């Protein structure tokens, strides 16, 4: 049974989701100017998933993410300015400008990296959980992958191994309905990704990813299970992404007003605000104040990132190895 969230926890959850939303909406605008190198894959619309899971994790718990990783990084506590600078490819970025959007990492915060290889994070968190067991800690390891990623062999192998070894892992399948331009109801052979859990000897549930509280409750139960030594779980979070697979994707594979419908009727931030203010848990003024603070945070991050220096040419050859003969 989950315990009710405190006032501060609720406000923090809103702040996390609002920060992710503002970060991604701003990137959508800035990327169109051509100043940001490489690709970005935006998480806008999916905030409740990252916030709901990460509310149960500390810095000693690890997560692995995928190409759509900004939301996971922000929710895990990675510095927003450091992230923005990294996405701009600047020396002040969290990876010194050498990773970019798809390789943001912060090991002190237990963020094992956004990953450009779909599904690759799943075996990595099996390893992180194994390390926790060998070191005798009660840390858990969580991997986020998408509906597309759920079809990768790496995920199947990792799930099986996590069960065979009874490891403290959590597998989160963020089903936003599309793997690039392919619908998940076509590419996933079973009715629900969560149905696969039984095949790998672990419990699986499907939750509404627009509802922070639904995600929070399911994640809490799974993480408690893992910490208690009862093994891994799978949670399928059903949500939508508001933007394309990558910025620049015209999304012609989607229905014309599909995103508009979700934004107007199911948006996770809108639902959270309505429920918490109606219940008298938070006030509209408090939430508006968070909105203003987040806008300022993002503005400052973008302004600084734009003017920060790029890595030097010599940096191209550093850190290929830890040690050189």
């Amino acid at each position, binding site marked *: 049974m989950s315990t009710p969230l405190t006032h501060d926890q609720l406000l923090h959850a809103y702040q996390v989701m609002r920060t992710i939303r503002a970060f991604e909406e701003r990137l959508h605008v800035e990327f169109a100017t051509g100043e940001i190198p490489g690709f970005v894959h935006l998480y806008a619309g999916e905030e409740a998933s990252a916030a709901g899971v990460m509310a149960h994790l500390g810095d000693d718990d690890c997560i692995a993410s995928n190409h759509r990783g900004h939301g996971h990084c922000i929710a895990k506590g990675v510095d927003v300015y450091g992230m923005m600078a990294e996405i701009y490819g600047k020396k002040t970025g969290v990876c*010194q400008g050498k990773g970019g959007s798809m390789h943001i990492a912060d090991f002190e915060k237990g963020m094992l990296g956004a990953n450009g290889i779909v599904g690759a994070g799943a075996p990595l968190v*099996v390893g992180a959980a194994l390390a926790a067991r*060998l070191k005798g800690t009660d840390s858990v390891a969580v991997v986020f992958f998408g509906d597309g990623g759920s079809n990768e062999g790496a995920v199947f192998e*990792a799930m099986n191994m996590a069960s065979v070894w009874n490891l403290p892992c959590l597998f989160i399948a963020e089903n936003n309905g599309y793997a690039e331009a392919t619908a998940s109801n076509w590419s996933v052979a079973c009715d629900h990704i969560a149905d696969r859990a039984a095949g790998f000897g672990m419990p699986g549930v499907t939750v509404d990813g627009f509802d922070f509280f639904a995600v929070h409750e399911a994640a809490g139960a799974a993480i408690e299970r893992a910490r208690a030594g009862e093994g891994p779980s799978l949670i399928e979070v059903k949500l939508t992404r508001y933007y394309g697979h990558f910025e620049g994707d015209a999304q012609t594979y989607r229905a014309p007003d599909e995103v508009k419908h979700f934004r107007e009727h199911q948006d996770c931030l809108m639902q959270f605000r309505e429920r918490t203010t109606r219940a008298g848990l938070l006030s509209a003024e408090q939430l508006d104040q968070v909105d203003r603070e987040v806008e300022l945070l993002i503005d400052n991050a973008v302004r600084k990132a734009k003017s920060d220096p790029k890595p030097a040419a010599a940096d191209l050859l550093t850190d290929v190895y830890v040690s050189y*003969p």
Partner: protein
Amino acid sequence: MARKISYQQAINEALAQEMRRDTSVFIMGEDVAGGAGAPGENDAWGGVLGVTKGLYDQFPGRVLDTPLSEIGYVGAAVGAATCGVRPVCELMFVNFAGCCLDQILNQAAKFRYMFGGKASTPRVIRTMVGAGLRAAAQHSQMLTSLWTHIPGLKVVCPSSPYDAKGLLIQAIRDNDPVIFCEHKLLYGMQGEVPEELYTIPFGEANFLRDGKDVTLVSYGRMVNTAMTRRAAWPGAVSIARSSTCAPPARWTRTAFSKAWRRPGAWWS
């Protein structure tokens, strides 16, 4: 004089001594013990050719059999290494790397660089390489040239029992991802091996024999083949042995500058 043991025993000894010294070191792979979940003995195999036999009982909880899931357990080794322990995972035959190449090429070998110097992935993959057991196409490749062309990976090829022990201990202590290539025809080779722990630095190359006309440079099993063939041209052939294929750059210039000054030098 050091006692003589086999290449296989030298590897087993390196693992045992280093696991005793450093409790963060552990072994994982398919049947590295053997017998998991089965009604008979645990440690039934100790690896398909018995290289890790006896370690299961010496180090409870640190010799882990895995399901047949190369992506899964090679990837788990990467994740575990990044989180502060030192896995030595066994890829039974190097040919099986086709199953898990992403975890080697895009994950382990790239973390240090793409995370801006903040990650360290001290993972060793021990793997059997080479032809000669009539095991056919899918169990007989070397692939050392493939590994050598992956930036961020260190590639080690011991050519003797002495090399095998010292280089494996070095590989386990190294903080970069290492592929440790054990030629399957060398397992029975006998040689002098010190009983104590010792390391051989990576990137070392040395001349085993001198000659005036041609220099053969090699690694792994081919060093021994070159040494044998040399007898047909007494005084003519120098033999140089390299311990690692990657990273090559710095030692190539210094260690082999002597070779380049010799007439007719060529590379094997």
